[in-house]
C-alpha cells in the first residue's frame, strides 16, 4: 500500500491504465477471431456452392457464373462487410483449368497453394495491394477454384479498436488524474488544517481545536476524536494544575501549624502542656501524611494496574458489611439509616468498593447535622448495578456538582469542616477504574450520589 497521497494517485492511475489496456487487447483479440471465423465461413460457403454448381453443370458454366457473380458483388451484394475496398468488393474468385490457364475471376495474385492460405498478397481493382484469406480447391478434372476474401476488414477493425481505446484511455486517464488531483487537494487541505491546529497547540494555544466542517465525513470524525482527546488532555492538565496549586496551598496551613507548635515547645515549659503540643503536632503530621496517602491512592487507582486483581464481588454483601460497621456511628447521631440491596455481583476489588461506600458514609457523617437520615440503595439497572448513597442534608448546589469530584475541592468556602476534599475524587477514581460512572443525582433536597457499575 502506498503511504502518500501521491503514491496512491500514481498507483490508481497505473491500475486504471493497465486495466483499460488489458480490456482493449482482450476485446481486439475476440473481435479479430470472430471476424476471421466469419471470413473463413464465407469462403467455405462460396466454395461449396460453386463446387456444387460445377458438379451439376461443368467447367464452362462455372466460369460464366463466376463472371456474373463478380459483377453482382461489385454492387455490394454481400453486404455484411461494408467499405472493404474502393470498389466495394470483398470477395474475389479465380478459376484455373487443368492446363493452368485462367478462365474466370479477377483475383490479381499469384496462384495460392492448394488448401487454406492465410496471407495472400493481391492487387485490388483500384490498384492498391491487399492481403487476402484464400481457399484453393482442386477440381476433379485437375482445374483449381480459388475463393479469396480481403482481410482489409480485420485491419480496419484493428484501426477502429485502436482509435476507440485510444480515446477511452485518454478519457480514463484524464478522469483519474482529475479525480486524484482533486482528492489530493481535499486531503491536503484537511490535513493542513489539522497540522496548523496541532502546531498552534504545541506552540501553547491549548484552547485551539481541529477544524470541523459539519459534514460528519471521515476527516470530521478524525478531527472530532482528536478534539475529544484534546479536551480530555486539557481537562487532565487543568486538574493537575489545580491539584498542584491546591496541594501547595493545603500543605501550607498544617505545616505552619506544626511549625508553630514546635516553636511554642522550644520556649514553653515542660509538663502536660508540652505533651499536649507534642501530641497535637503528631496529629497534624498524621493528617498531612493521610493527605499524601489519599493522593497516592487516587493516582494508583487511576493508574489502572489494579484491574489485574479484580474478582467477582457480591456487592450487596460488601455494602452490607460496611453498613454494619457504620450503623453504630449512625445510631449514636440518631440518624435514620436504611439499607436496601438486591443481590448483585460486580467484577472488582472488594476493599476498594467498600472504600467507596465508606467514603460516602463518612461524607454524610461529617457534612450533615446529627439526626439527618442516610440511606443506601442497590438495585439492578439497565447498564449494571445502581448504587446510591443519599442523605437528607443541605446538599450541594447544582453549580458545584461537576467540581465536587475534583481533587482537593471543598465546597464550603470556609474550609472549616475536617477533610482534605479527596473523598469524592477517590470515589470517582475507584468507580471509574471499575468501568462505572458516578454522578450527583439532581434532586430538590439532600444529596444523592449515584453510581452505575457494570454487573457480571
Amino acid at each position, binding site marked *: 500500500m502506498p503511504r502518500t497521497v501521491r503514491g496512491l494517485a500514481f498507483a490508481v492511475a497505473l491500475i486504471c491504465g493497465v486495466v483499460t489496456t488489458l480490456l482493449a487487447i482482450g476485446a481486439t483479440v475476440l473481435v479479430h477471431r470472430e471476424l476471421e471465423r466469419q471470413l473463413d465461413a464465407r469462403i467455405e460457403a462460396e466454395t461449396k456452392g460453386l463446387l456444387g454448381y460445377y458438379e451439376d453443370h461443368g467447367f464452362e458454366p462455372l466460369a460464366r457464373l463466376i463472371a456474373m457473380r463478380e459483377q453482382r458483388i461489385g454492387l455490394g451484394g454481400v453486404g455484411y462487410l461494408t467499405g472493404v475496398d474502393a470498389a466495394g468488393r470483398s470477395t474475389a474468385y479465380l478459376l484455373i483449368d487443368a492446363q493452368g490457364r485462367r478462365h474466370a475471376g479477377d483475383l490479381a495474385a499469384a496462384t495460392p497453394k492448394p488448401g487454406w492460405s492465410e496471407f495472400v498478397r493481391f492487387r485490388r481493382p483500384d490498384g492498391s495491394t491487399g492481403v487476402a484469406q484464400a481457399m484453393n480447391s482442386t477440381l476433379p478434372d485437375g482445374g483449381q477454384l480459388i475463393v479469396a476474401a480481403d482481410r482489409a476488414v480485420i485491419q480496419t477493425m484493428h484501426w477502429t479498436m485502436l482509435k476507440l481505446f485510444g480515446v477511452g484511455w485518454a478519457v480514463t486517464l484524464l478522469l483519474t488524474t482529475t479525480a486524484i488531483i482533486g482528492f489530493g487537494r481535499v486531503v491536503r487541505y484537511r490535513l493542513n488544517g489539522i497540522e496548523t491546529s496541532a502546531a498552534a497547540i504545541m506552540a501553547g494555544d491549548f484552547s485551539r481545536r481541529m477544524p470541523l466542517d459539519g459534514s460528519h465525513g471521515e476527516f470530521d470524525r478524525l478531527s472530532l476524536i482528536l478534539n475529544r482527546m484534546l479536551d480530555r488532555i486539557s481537562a487532565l492538565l487543568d486538574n493537575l494544575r489545580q491539584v498542584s496549586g491546591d496541594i501547595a496551598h493545603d500543605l501550607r496551613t498544617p505545616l505552619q501549624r506544626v511549625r508553630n507548635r514546635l516553636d511554642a515547645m522550644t520556649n514553653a515549659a515542660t509538663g502536660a502542656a508540652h505533651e499536649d503540643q507534642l501530641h497535637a503536632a*503528631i496529629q497534624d503530621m498524621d493528617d498531612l501524611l*493521610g493527605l499524601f*496517602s489519599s493522593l*497516592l*491512592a487516587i493516582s494508583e487507582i487511576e493508574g489502572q494496574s489494579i484491574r489485574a486483581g479484580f474478582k467477582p464481588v457480591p456487592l450487596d454483601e460488601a455494602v452490607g*458489611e460496611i453498613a454494619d460497621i457504620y450503623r*453504630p*456511628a449512625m445510631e449514636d447521631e440518631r440518624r435514620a439509616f436504611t439499607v436496601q440491596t438486591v443481590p448483585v455481583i460486580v467484577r472488582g476489588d472488594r476493599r476498594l468498593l467498600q472504600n467507596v461506600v*465508606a*467514603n460516602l458514609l463518612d461524607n454524610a457523617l461529617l457534612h450533615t447535622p446529627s439526626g439527618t437520615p442516610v440511606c443506601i440503595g442497590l438495585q439492578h439497572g439497565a447498564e449494571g448495578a445502581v448504587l446510591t448513597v443519599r442523605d437528607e442534608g443541605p446538599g450541594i448546589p447544582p453549580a458545584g456538582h461537576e467540581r465536587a469530584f475534583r481533587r482537593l475541592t471543598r465546597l464550603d468556602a470556609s474550609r472549616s469542616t475536617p477533610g482534605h476534599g479527596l473523598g469524592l475524587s477517590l470515589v470517582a477514581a475507584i468507580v471509574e477504574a471499575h468501568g462505572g460512572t458516578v454522578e450527583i443525582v439532581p434532586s430538590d433536597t439532600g444529596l444523592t450520589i449515584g453510581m452505575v457499575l457494570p454487573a457480571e
Partner: protein
Amino acid sequence: MNIFLLEDDTETASYLINGLTELGHRVDASGDGNTAIAAIMARPHDVLVLDRMVPQRDGLSVLKAVRAGGCNAPALILTARSRIEDRVDGFEAGADDYLVKPFAFAELVARLNALARRPPPVETVTSLRAGEIEMDLLRRTVHRTGREIDLQPREFSLLEYLLRNAGKVVTRTMLLDRVWNLGFDPRTNIVETHVSRLRAKLDDGFGTGAIRTVRGAGYMIVDHEG
C-alpha cells in the same frame, strides 16, 4: 525479644534500633539484602522486620531466601507503597504482616508484639480470658465476673481480637484490618464508636474500665487478675 531489622535508610534504622532497644529488645540490623540473609541465617530471631526497598536484594527476595533456608520467624514487611498487589506479593513471599511507611513507632511495636505472641497455627483454644472477662468461643458467650454480657457479632469479634492480644496494645489500623477487614482508614471515628459501645456493655455496672486507651497508640485489654 530478638529482632532483626533490614533497613537501608540509616536515620530510620537508628531511630528504630534506639526505640526498640529502649523497650528492652535486642536488635540486629543490616542495610542491604545479602548481608541480611547471612545475619538472619547466622542466629535465630523472634521476629524479622524487612524493608521492601533496599539495595541489592529487596526485602521480599530476602524473605523468600531465608524461608527457603528454613527460617520460620514471623516477618513484617515495611513498604513505601500501599498497592494491593504489593500486599498480596508480601503474603505470598511468606510475610506475616505488612506496614506502610510512614508509620507511627507505636504501631510498629504493637504489630511486632502481636506477631511474636502469635498463637500456634493449630487452634485448640476454646475460651479466652483476661482479668475479669471470660469468652467462650464455642458457645459465643462473654462473662464478666460471672455476669453474662450480651454482645453483637461484630462486638464479639472486636473483643475476641482484644482478648487474643491481651496485655498488648492493639492499634486502630490493626483493628480496621483484622476485625473489619478494611484495607483503608475511614475519615470518621468508626473504631472509637465500636470500642465505646463495647466498653459501655462491658463496664455497665462495674467500677473499672475493661479496655484501656493508650494515647497515641491504640487500645489494650488489661490482663491482670481481679
